[in-house]
């Protein structure tokens, strides 16, 4: 505990396993915002276990700050487990979509070659535009933007980062055992929202 921690800021990947609960996203986001910490990337999705969600949060901070943040997140009632790792400790990907005019693709062989070199794959081909996707690290997806810009890039979007921890047995087995022993409850949604006109109001 007395070891001197490095003070340099770097990217950390925070992995959070949670119950699927309304409002929890806000509770986690507040932990960052009250400390005025900027989130670089935030992804929330169902995990491999029904009812348990997995957040991947990327922040650029010192380990000291990230350790404290992880502790604050883990103490939330509906949070099962929190890990944090540097980029070296995870395998991570982001997905990007690029919309470019189809006629340019069709007419200019150079574009086609560039797309191939960047591992882009056509997702939709229409008369007026074509959508490609690539996955990779930020600098890779960024690079293709620069390349496509002179050829009339119409639109671009990139997903949040998802990451898998390298040096880990994974949480899968633990989660499955957990779920078997203590199955989660379904989230109760507001079923009355669609019945506004039919319900008597006071």
């Amino acid at each position: 505990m007395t070891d001197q921690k490095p003070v340099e800021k770097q990217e950390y990947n925070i992995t959070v396993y949670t119950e699927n609960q309304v409002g929890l996203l806000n509770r986690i986001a507040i932990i960052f915002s009250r400390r005025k910490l900027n989130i670089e990337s935030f992804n929330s999705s169902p995990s491999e276990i029904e009812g348990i969600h997995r957040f991947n949060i990327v922040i650029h901070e010192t380990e000291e700050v990230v350790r404290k943040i992880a502790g604050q997140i883990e103490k939330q009632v509906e949070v099962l487990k929190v890990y944090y790792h540097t980029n070296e400790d995870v395998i991570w990907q982001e997905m990007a979509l690029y919309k470019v005019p189809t006629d340019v693709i069709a007419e200019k062989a150079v574009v086609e070659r560039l797309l191939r070199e960047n591992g882009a794959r056509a997702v939709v081909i229409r008369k007026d535009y074509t959508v490609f996707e690539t996955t990779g690290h930020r600098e890779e997806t960024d690079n293709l933007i620069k390349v496509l810009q002179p050829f009339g890039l119409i639109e671009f979007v990139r997903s949040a980062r998802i990451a898998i921890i390298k040096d880990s047995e994974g949480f899968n087995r633990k989660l499955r055992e957990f779920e078997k022993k203590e199955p989660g409850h379904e989230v109760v949604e507001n079923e009355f929202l669609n019945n506004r006109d039919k319900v008597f109001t006071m």
Partner: protein
Amino acid sequence: MLTKEKQAPELLEETKPITGAEALIMGLLEEGVDTIFGYPGGAIMPIYDALYDYREKLNHVLVRHEQGGIHAGQGYARSSGKVGVVFATSGPGATNLITGLADALIDSTPLVCITGQVFAHLLGTDAFQEADVISITTPVTKWNHQVTDASEICDTLAKAFHIARSGRPGPVLIDITKNAQLQKFDFKGYTCCDHIRSYRPKPIVRKEYIEQAADLINQAQKPFVLWGQGVILGAAEKEFKAFIEKTGIPAAWTIMGAGALPSDHPQNVGMLGMHGNYGPNVMTNECDVLIAIGMRFDDRVTGRLDKYAKQAKVIHLDIDPSEISKNVTATVPVWGDCKETLPLLTALVEEKKHTEWLEKFNEYEQKEVEAVIQDELFPASGELTMGEVIQQLNELTQGEAIIVTDVGQHQMVACRYAKLNHTRSNITSGGLGTMGFALPAAIGAKFGAQDRTVVAVIGDGGFQMTLQELGTIMQSGVDVKILILNNQFLGMVRQWQELFHERRYSFVDITSPNFVTVASGYGIAGRSISERDDLKGALEQMLNHKGSFLLEVMVTKENNVFPMVPQGCSVSEIRLK
């Protein structure tokens, strides 16, 4: 329809259809609730309607403002060790709870707040008295949840009580839409909750850390214990005393920990922090092993962190793992409930008497007595001081009273000088510093400990923030002694302005009404004094009066609370004047 009067929940048939509101009341009874502080309104009316049938079992205290209600709930929880329960309606009723929620969260006070909400189909439409209570209260609750269906009420309530009272306690809030309160469902009884799969109230105690901590303590030449409210919340006063007495280590307290060890215990060396005692603050930077028990190294305790106890190895005992190494890096972290960890530690430590080391604290105490305490507690002439009022109160109550303080100079004076023989005797707003806390908290404290004398020590500024709760005293007949220390200033701000803003007294000169007349309007007896000769008699009159009594003591206007660690300074730079 259920016949509710005096019917125990266990006698109910298995699947009786009842309303959500009735189920909530059943749940409260099953949780052992006896007192609720609240204020009705449109969106919580079905719950109040159900409560009406159980008014002989559940004492509802009608406060005059929801903030008063939640502070009363806090006072009740802190004096009784039980969960405080608060009702409020939607919108403004719910938002009036925010200060109390923030206060309870930072001071780890167990509360279950129930708020009414508009019909579920109106959520998000800016309906009358609608506020997004879940979003608003998320940062100031340990947990919160909105219920839109009656069948959810029992499970949610059970979960709420479990979360509020277990682990590091805290406030929870349940927001119940009006349709859920009115809706009937098949009630199958109420089951208390003792487990939530994603909630670990206590970390697992690791024996290797206990052993490492014991080694450090056994080798230490100048060990020093700092204790906080964790000892009280863990009901570990006996275990703490056993540890202290076996190791012979001097121990100092945070204001939230006051009373866990009696004031006159020979190893109790006083209060820590900005307005704490001289010795404990200075010696923090001289000890070789610092043992922090159930305290969180708040900035008011540590002063400048980069100059705080750098020479010491730190052992930190805490139930909340995120508190360990948050502010001060721990050499040995001892995760766990101190009720469990302290006996394990006591078993491994050697019996010692750190006589010489303890004597150093006494030397510093003597220095502080000469420089500050003597004049504050026993002034020979001049106007009355806050300290001598507390000293006289000590002599009359013999440390047996519960002292509830507001926030400001009087708070620091009362916490420093009040004699406390018992645990749960010091109730104050420690972390948030909420002016207006004391009067309603004292009401709650009396309901939580009806056989004890409750004295609310309040400044003239803080009293005017929630004095409407005199109405609650009037109606409920609760016996609270109100001691106003009136220096005609917002005293602590004025002290800072004097010390750090060249005496530019910007808007701290506060005019007060005739407090005795105000109290009289509420049917509460009172008296105002300004002479030393009247002090003892007036305090006796207050304490002996049957029922509530307001005593205003006019004290010297520009008296400062010393010692003081100026903000941004190290604790060893504490000033005696």
